[in-house]
């Protein structure tokens, strides 16, 4: 039998796993939670899209197909080969402000 974790503990596990996924997929070479690198800070993305109802769909499309013109002159490259489930996790995590845990 396994331990029963509280909801915050489960979220922390999930957040840490998604942060690890972002590292593994190379997102963090160009992005940071707090500050702009090549691309915008994930917290700035979360702030910009916080009231947008179709935010998940919009950002999923940007990750999969790339985009430009929202955050400056450097385009977001397409990541067409990243599986949909992983993109969904990443987008959800970014919209939470990319918590480490």
């Amino acid at each position: 039998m396994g331990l029963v974790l509280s909801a915050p503990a489960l979220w922390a596990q999930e957040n840490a796993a998604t942060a690890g996924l972002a590292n593994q997929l190379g997102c963090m070479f160009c992005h940071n939670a707090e500050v702009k690198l090549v691309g915008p800070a994930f917290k700035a993305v979360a702030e910009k899209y916080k009231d947008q109802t179709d935010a998940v769909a919009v950002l999923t499309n940007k990750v999969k197909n790339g985009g430009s013109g929202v955050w400056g002159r450097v385009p977001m490259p397409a990541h067409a080969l990243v599986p949909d489930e992983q993109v969904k996790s990443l987008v959800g995590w970014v919209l939470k402000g990319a918590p480490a845990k």
Partner: protein
Amino acid sequence: MGLATSGVVLAESALNISKRDIGGVVTGAKGAEAGVWVIAETKDLPTKFAKIVVTDDKGRFLLPEMPSANYQIWVRGYGLVDSPKVTAKPGQKLDLKAVQAPDERSAAAYYPGMYWYTLLDIPPANDFPGTGDKGNGIPATIKKQSYWVDTIKNSCQSCHALGSEGMRNVSDFYKKKAGGDSFGAWAHRTQAGQAMAYMGVAVGRLGPDKGLELFANWTDKIEKGALPFDKPKRPKGVERNVVYTMWDYSSNKYYLHDGISSDKRNNKVNPNGLFWGSPEESTDRVPFLDPVNHKSGEVVMPYRDPKLFGQKEQPKGPSAYWGDELIWDGHTSIHNNVMDEAGRVWFSARIRPFANPDFCKQGSDHPSAKVLPIAESVRQLSMYDPAKKEWSLINTCFTTHHLYFSRDKNNILWTSAGGPGLSAVGWLDTKKYLETKDEQKSQGWTPIVLDTNGNGKRDAYTDLGQPDDPSKDKRVMTGFYGVQTSPVDNSVWGQSMDVGFSRVDQAGFLIRLTPGSDPSNTALAEIYQPPEGYYGLRGLDIDSKGVVWSVLSSGQMTSFDRNKCKGPLNGPASASGKHCPEGWTMYRFPGPQFKGVNDPNGSAEHAYYIAVDVENTLGLGKDVPVALTNGGEALLALVKGDWVSLRVPYPLGFFSKNADGRIDDPKAGWKGKGFWTTSGTRANFHGEGGTEAYPKVFKVQVRPSPLAN
């Protein structure tokens, strides 16, 4: 004149063409062409082969020791464009006609990359520190102009032959993607291929808006007709005595980081044997070259954990050269290789994912883990025994980057970590390992601790981030990039990278480590920082007298002689590394400086590493330091205080990351030895030959005269 028979001696000269040579005279519009290159290439041998020599003051040349084949031969030189290729065989005499360049632009196409990349604007000194993306676009972390230059040289130029044709011109592929906008084209090209993530880091470091804008302005300027403001000079003096021999190996889709021909401690090891490459991220297929039979081949390095991530899983973007094809298939990140006394080849390489096994971590009873537990390592070790055709994979707790053997009875293999993150130095007792195959007991590591309390021994120390305590020693945040042991006292020397590579706001150092009797607990370090105005140490080697040699991104070769230090080498004053400016000697690299950099003591030249030719394998003397200068596309040797620039003129875009010497036959003079290196740029296809260009092995020899055979 014009005898075409073999074995002839021309009456009017000392041009003695044997049956194995091709020789003759190069003339141009004004008579003899002195100091131009004659290039001979053939596809008749099992692998593509070429040899290059330089004409003497009368325009004469002699290509010595040519394997039997039909060669395409042509003339290349400053002020010229390539002459039409003619066919010849060994034993033949050839008179070649040089072709004058019709204009400056045609002539400049053959200049080393440095002459082109000095057209790149460097932000003026008063733009620093940067004011961020809402200010001048330069990040606040780039505090000085030197940080910017160091980032260009030790991030961008770490991988790219910066001024080569493929770099100074932007493909229409990227321009089209960006709707004709140059900035956008540079954004797309820095997202191309499987190196997208690495390039993202460098672009982010410069500030994408400012960095890409300046690169876009650079290539726009060149497209509109801008030409280099300085011109290279033709080879002169001993530079005309050189013979370059080169072979293709590996694949046009892969790249090499390093290569090795012999044992650094004894250049007579592996005479006439195989040359081994290390293909870093590009593949697990380790290429070798048989220079006697002109054959290449490969062995595939295995890895322990099938879950090891590979280059095909890296983020990637479409390439102007390869489209969506994933040309890199590596997992093992085989960065650097050295050879031991038995001809075994040792590699810094990845054998499993980053998480370390338990014996490395907190709670382990491993002697080194008790001192400094380590949770992750990015790269470990492997060894290939060509005689047995066997691989060994060695699971180290510490990250490896470069590696060299000491001269002690246990053949300790000392390693560097690359960046400062680990702040430790790791080693493998290879004698113990080969006897027992016990990887745990054969390895060790130590934190880098300075003797700041000045009592001459390692004792309690303040750890990273803790305030100094005058009663204790001090652990410092630094790490070896280059590594080498001293032939004089077997001390271990490392070199740490400056801010442009390390991304830590700290100068680069030379680091001297004395291991002591129980290195995890007894090793003590000293750090030495170059004097004010000099920055960007990269790589090191040590001559037979124990003098340490390195290169600087401020544009110099440098030596450091610890014996010249006048003050104490330990104690609190030693913690800054600034306590021995008198130990350093600087030698400005030749060539132009960036126009925006007001530093006449420096040069725009960039060298990736340095090798000291202790045994005179190159032919310029014993203990000659040779910088791998990728701006000048040359091996740049310092001989008795004077520069000897051995520019490799073909294929254009020569870029090397290290070199070593080998003596095949000690009785055969210059013919029995040579200096070996390999192509080192990650984007071979940016140079001459484009996507058809394969990585090459280069053997460089200096003869007694330009016509020696």
